[in-house]
């Protein structure tokens, strides 16, 4: 890539917006995933009995079951949220930058 086109894109307001918003968004989602997962792991390490609480009086199913399944679903939902935003917002910004350069 030529230095002048690097400078041109770098100065492009849409590019600034793209870099900034994608960075915040991606790292926020990453932190959410890390907090969910390590929250789970640390609960297991320090308070395993918590997950062994029955979901209702007399039930065999423990709250650990729905929580585990919820974590699996949350991973899928988080990737879905990212795709939705990237497909609309980030792709639109990228398209705008490309068009301006031509």
């Amino acid at each position, binding site marked *: 890539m030529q230095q002048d086109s690097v400078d041109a894109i*770098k100065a492009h307001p849409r590019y600034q917006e793209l870099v900034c918003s994608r960075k915040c968004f991606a790292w926020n989602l990453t932190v959410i*995933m890390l907090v969910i997962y*390590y929250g789970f792991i*640390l609960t297991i390490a320090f308070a395993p009995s918590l997950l062994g609480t029955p979901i209702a009086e007399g039930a065999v199913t423990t709250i650990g079951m729905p929580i585990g399944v919820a974590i699996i679903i949350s991973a899928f939902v988080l990737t879905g949220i990212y795709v939705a935003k990237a497909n609309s917002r980030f792709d639109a910004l990228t398209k705008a*930058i490309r068009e301006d350069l031509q």
Partner: protein
Amino acid sequence: MKRFYLWGVLLALLAPFALVAGPAVTGEVERQAINVTAIIMFLVFVAGTLGITYWAAKRTRSAKDFYTAGGGITGFQNGLAIAGDFMSAASFLGISGLVFASGYDGLIYSIGFLVGWPVIMFLIAEQIRNLGKFTFADVSSYRFGQTQIRTMAAISSLVVVAFYLIAQMVGAGKLIQLLFGLDYWMAVVAVGALMMVYVIFGGMTATTWVQIIKAVLLLAGATFMAGVALSTFGFSPEEMFRQAVETHPKALAIMSPGSLVTDPVNAISLGLALMFGTAGLPHILMRFFTVPDAKEARKSVFYATGFIGYFYILTFIIGFAAIVLLAQHPEFFKPEALAADGSVIKDQLVKGINGGTNMVAIRLAEAVGGNLFLGFISAVAFATILAVVAGLTLAGASAISHDLYASVIARGRSNETTEIRISKIATFGLGLLAIMLGIAFESQNVAFMVGLAFAIAASANFPVLITSIFWGKMTTNGALAGGVIGLISAVVLTILSKAVWGDVLGHVDADGKSVGLIALNNPAIISMPLAFFFIWIVSLLDHSEQAKRERHAFEAQRIRCETGIGAEGAVDH
């Protein structure tokens, strides 16, 4: 009655980490009678995949065709292929067996494997698609000294591939011996030879489609199994759990976390290796180059996460249902596990099952679907191993031909024809090596190998990759220092851990239990931060002219990374 006594011999392949491995891989496997249904089903699969390979071979001309299926795989297809890479025989048989043996702990394991995927999506999937061409070393060496970084990346890729391959080959041999009644060496040669045919003639196109077909078969089979199993409980999980607690010797303990995670340090270390190891596995990263652009790359992670998550929920149901349903089939148990009236003794449920707990899913297939379905699931398990080793070998061959040969030895002056030829020769060589190592390691304890592969991927490949994408001040020397330290520390710490020092090298404590020199089971909590630290400190201290140029080149790299402008494939159609 078919009888074979197998104590954890499958764990090499089936339980990815020493942590879940029970007894060591030892001794002879008694052969099962030849299973005709399974062999016919498997031959149908082989015939189908060879047909695909023939079709793929006609379309494979350029290097891009060979390495990345021409970049023409859609996000959905790639999602299935990625899921296929992940839904190995290890996850299917190993995790359902773990759930059968200890209940809730199996779920903890699956979650660890799954949560790496969103992180891959947010931080590296689109980035590597925009920056790379054929291998992840394209990305980590993007603005750095090609010779050094490519050599390092190729070496760590090959080390990861080698350990992974040995574990798969040994596991394949034992599993096939068990399922089909073939000799160990025949099984290993069959897997190696078929895999070479797929990769050499069909390249990535054939490898991807074999993986997709297998993923669909495995998902369909597991769905059927879990569905039929759940229907016996009136589709009520509570009912299933209640009966499982009544049947299982550990009773209520199977409903909450048990012994898998004991202390926080090992828990976090394992979590790190599971989560970030995935993001450093060469055969997984290579999949992102098979899609045309960043948009399809992100879609493929979305689908893959969905399929993998769904699959883990199925294996969980399969494991729990098996506790109840297998106990009703005394013929699946060893004679000493049976009471005078022919029923299964409660305490013997886990220990007494024929073939060990890794056979649980296979046994359940027989219980819910008869001999035909047993044959189907056995054939799918074989297909699974085949598809995974094909992907691994292709990744290893690319490291040799694209990174070592084309960029380092020929210094970018090779032509495509030569590069593809080298790649095919490398595939042949790796295939032969895999067969030989598979036979050599038959009676060795290889349980630590997949764990080590993940640890190296998380400690050597991932830190260099992610910092090269996001940190502008990084230099060649920093990347080199971090990558080498990550690789060495992961290997050394693994050797000192219980899995190698005790289980393989035979060091024992006063009670005769195997011990490690260090208490850490997985090195990631030390080796990963070490790698990042050396990347950081060496880059900061690097004031050379070259370092200045590399820092300056970051802006251009970042623009291509963010927008895809100039990216391979994104612009040529």
